[in-house]
């Protein structure tokens, strides 16, 4: 049987993490094709509903890539996003989908390889969890 | 046979009271043993009322048992579990059963005990409960109705000498006196200088204030009191003293401390009496009194 390839959605701030994507690409590192990126002006724009809807629509995992600590150009959009992620994790645990399918990552643009690393890390994590129970 | 508590209070003697904790259940053997042990050694035995919000045998029933065994009971009543109807009714019952002393308290919050989901009452507060008892003595209930046969009590209340919010505590203290409290039994005190300064605040009243002596059984208990019990502060030197006791001798050390403080209170005439609390270990009270020279 072919190995399960998780479908992931990454909500990605157009600042540091998006630059990080560019750095990745310029270094010739590929971002796994199972990760689809949705760009947002700031991770502070990512709503609980967006994450839940992504899971409902069949994503096996969702993560949010925000700027590193203290580097949000809107002061603390990344911190606010992080708190929402915590609530989504609890909700998904309650529902039975599993909170581990959702994560927040912080990165600076200079950490180019980090974006690819995060994409792989999350892919591996979700692969370990198996397909979303909503897709079974 | 014991003397009426009111008579002791006015005699000028050094007053000693102690506590009896009703059992959780109906086995009263151990409690009876304590009653026998204490009835001739102390002037009054307080019976706690669902102490710490833990459901137990009723205070009124135990007071009646003490009376039967020739002791002098002090009925503790809290406002937590009964509304004004039940409280007044129980006061009438106490009187007809021969109980003549009542200590009126607010009571711990329900959430601190073993029935956290219970609905707490607090229809009256402690000042209003004192007033209710006094009112019954006048042959009237709180609804303004006449009684057929009134009551006569020696009414007591509590105070907290080591409270950090002394001003507002004194506000309530004054109200209790004004309402008719005849004696006070205080929350545990460990710091004699704080006790002295509290007594200075209360100089104008003629009410008898009995200092609460809670026997320490371990350094752990002392630390617990400091961390979790409002209005109680065990000074560091006492903690060190009990912590320094030989293994297995902590209780003995605690008894020594209690005896020493009782002696100091008596010798220096800080208070006209003491109220000894030995939660669950009432058998040690006579020995403490002996050590204190009483």
């Amino acid at each position, binding site marked *: 049987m072919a190995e399960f390839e998780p479908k992931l959605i990454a909500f990605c701030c157009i600042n540091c993490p998006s630059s990080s994507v560019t750095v990745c690409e310029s270094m010739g590192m590929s971002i796994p094709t199972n990760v689809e990126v949705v760009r947002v002006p700031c991770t502070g724009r990512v*709503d609980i509903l967006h994450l839940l809807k992504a899971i409902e629509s069949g994503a096996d995992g969702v993560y949010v890539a925000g700027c590193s600590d203290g580097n949000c150009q809107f002061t603390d959009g990344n911190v606010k996003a992080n708190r929402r992620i915590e609530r989504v994790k609890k909700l998904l645990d309650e529902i039975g989908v599993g909170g581990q399918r959702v994560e927040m990552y912080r990165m*600076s643009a200079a950490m180019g390889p980090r974006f690819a690393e995060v994409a792989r890390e999350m892919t591996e994590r979700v692969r370990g969890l198996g397909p979303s129970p909503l897709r079974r | 046979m014991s003397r009426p508590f009111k008579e002791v209070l006015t005699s000028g003697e050094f007053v000693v009271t102690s506590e009896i904790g009703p059992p959780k259940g109906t086995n009263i053997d151990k409690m009876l043993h304590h009653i026998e042990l204490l009835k001739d050694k102390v002037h009054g035995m307080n019976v706690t009322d669902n102490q710490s919000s833990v459901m137990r045998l009723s205070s009124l029933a135990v007071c009646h048992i003490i009376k039967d065994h020739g002791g002098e009971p002090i009925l503790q009543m809290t406002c937590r579990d009964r509304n004004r109807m039940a409280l007044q009714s129980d006061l009438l019952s106490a009187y007809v059963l021969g109980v003549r002393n009542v200590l009126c308290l607010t009571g711990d919050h329900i959430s601190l005990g073993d029935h956290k989901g219970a609905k707490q009452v607090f229809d009256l507060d402690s000042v209003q409960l004192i007033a209710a008892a006094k009112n019954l003595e006048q042959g009237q209930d709180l609804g303004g109705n006449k009684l057929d046969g009134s009551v006569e009590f020696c009414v007591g209340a509590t105070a907290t000498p080591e409270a950090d919010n002394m001003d507002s505590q004194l506000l309530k203290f004054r109200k209790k006196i004004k309402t008719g409290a005849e004696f006070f039994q205080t929350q545990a005190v460990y710091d004699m200088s704080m006790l002295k300064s509290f007594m200075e605040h209360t100089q104008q009243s003629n009410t008898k204030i009995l200092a609460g002596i809670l026997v320490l059984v371990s350094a752990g208990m002392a630390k617990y009191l400091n961390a979790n019990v409002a209005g109680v502060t065990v000074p560091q030197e006492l903690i060190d003293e009990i912590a320094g006791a030989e293994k297995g001798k902590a209780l003995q050390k605690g008894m020594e401390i209690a005896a020493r403080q009782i002696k100091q209170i008596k010798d220096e005439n800080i208070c006209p009496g003491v109220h000894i609390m030995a939660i669950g270990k009432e058998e040690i009270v006579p020995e403490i009194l002996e050590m204190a020279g009483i």
Partner: protein
Amino acid sequence: MSNEKIVGSVMVVGGGIAGMQAALDLANAGYSVYLVEKSSSIGGMIPQLHRTYPICICCKIDSRGVECLSNPNIKVLLDSEVIEVNGESGNFQAVVRDKDRTINLNAGAIVLSAGFEPFDPSGYDTYAYAQFPNIVTSVELEALQKPTGTNQGILRRPSDNKEPEKIAWLQCVGSRDINQGDTGACSTVCCMYALKEALNIKDARPRIEVSIFYMDLRAHGKGFENYTNQALAKGVRLIRSRVHTIDPVPGSDDLRIQYGDEHGHLQTESYDMVVLSVGLKPARDAVALAEKLGVNLDTNHFVQTRPFEPTTTSVPGIFVCGALNGPMDISNAVTNASAVVSQIGAYLGPTASPSKAKPSEILNISAEPINFMDVPVKKQALVVGGGVAGMESALTLAKQGYPVTIVEKNNQLGGHALFVSKTWQGYCVPDYLMRLINEVSNHPKIEIHLESEIVKNSGYVGNFKSAIRNSQSAITVEHGVTILATGAEITKPTEYLYGQNPNVWNWSDFDEQMINDPGVFEQAKTAVFIQCVGSRENERQYCSKLCCSFAVRKAIDLKTKNPEMNIYVLYREMRTYGDREDIYKQARLLGVMFIRYTLENKPEVCEKDEGILGVTIHDHVLDLPVIIEPDFICLQSAIVSQGSEKLAKLFKVALDKDGFFVESPAKLKPIDAMTEGVFLAGMDLSPKSIEESIAQGQAAAGRAMGILSRSTIQVGGVVAKVDEEKCVGCLTCVRMCPFQVPIVDPNQRVASIEPGLCRGCGICVSECPGKAISVVGFSDQQLIARTESLLYS
């Protein structure tokens, strides 16, 4: 594009951060710019760096290069060199040669911004740099750390590609050293970049041991002390010592370092790698060009500027900015560049520039049209604070014809400079200040409100409205830009017998006394200066920056007048950064005694009979207590912000934990506030010297010109919008917006968001419990639809 005429051309030589910033600010103000860069790309040093301090912003700088290349007003000449310059101020003719051809161009003014080059340690045996592969320069280390480098962000040492476990930095390599490399100046930036490199390594691999060997830790800038404390907390080791020998460890590629510790004992330690924190030297080509242009250089070969004109060279029409002006960090270089632009503006006269779209960094992901609205710009400025920074910015703008309103809370202009007698170089401050106050007071375009304060502010970039109130009246002004330059205050010491003994002075009183009665302290036999009084301890964990230079200057002045005087400076770190190192050296030569103390061993001051003072201090070198009986003591007390909460709130500017204004985090914009159209200058940002305040005031004017020169400004675009039908006025958006943009007017009862102020982050949209806010291009529907389409495809 508009067909308004563009006047004035400027040649900027050097495409590093300062050159790029100058070019962009000039272009935005309507000048046409030739940006001449000798290498094949612009960007300068910064693309070579791995992260910056105290906050990392390197990822935000790339766009500046792109902007330069795409701006129609900027012509970028790569691989180019200036061969010859003729003509004079207002009409220079330059000959520039690139790989293939020679270009003749005309320029009204020239900006020298071709910066610095790192000190090359290869010729110096002490550093053994050429001998051992595992001794690298800090510049090489940046490349080794970079994720885009050959090691993909994993630090490996050159000799064997091993991941190092122990790394040492040696400071002051090619700085503060006239024997080795003829560089007397302190390079200003190395302490901080070494800390940054060490901290980044610690963050990536906490088990790596990092040690920095230094002489004085010069963490004098805004946020630097805090950064240092962070580094210490994370295990960066600081060793105060100058290393004298580096030897190989036999049988390995490791290196052995010998150094004398603070007690004079010889210590030996082995390291896997040694990093030389190389200093900044003016770039050779730039120096050659400057010499060719007849521009004066200072003793350290940096371009010399005129007193109180931090970017003006000795040749009219030629300006300098960035590290060619003296060693400086990135944010000072950017400030310097904007200051140059304002000086050129005042010099060449204003231009009319086209209206420009509100700079939007936000990509539109939907097909939804983004609407902008053209709003005329109020070509007028409001300057809050009439100190040096405020007056310089006002005057610069007024000289270009823009009306300026100055609001000063005191009853006279001048601010803190009224109590300063000399700059660290020894220039006379009162003369300068009187000239400036006269010029400002008599300028027809400047309106001054003394004993007044701002009580209300509304609007947005290009269209602000403020209410000014004094005891008699209240007026309203409309202005396109706001410059906040409210200054700072000096604390009154609470120790060292201040206020109890008349001979214990606070430095501002001391200097004021020097202005009023220059000879007053001359006859003293012994003087003591105590540094860091209330700074870098307890609740004020920051450096007040200018006190070291102040004390050294005063010591020199006193010693020059009376060579017999014994002068002691009791300090914790001697922070005479940059060219100030020269006066530190001079003071030592004159015999001024410098004794270091630690926070645990602060000096003790007592009063003996008849008010005679006694100072006891533990001397580290002698390891003995030293007792001094001074005639007077001068205390360098801390500089604090003067309670700007109200203004911060009015103008939507954040305050840092020390109460100073916070500059925009969005990009490297050291004088832009978080709110567009609001600029910050002077000591309300952080403590600084007069020349730095002047530069900031001018730079604020330079930034302001970019807005005032436009006829209209575009607002709207990617901004949040409230659906009034759905809004219940719950205040969530008001509380959650990082920039305090949404308001719920008690009369309207629903929220409103001013499109001119909204930055489009979308935080309020995600927080609104009634779903009453949307942001153009990023609505819930759009984001959810995008997610679904990605998942279903």
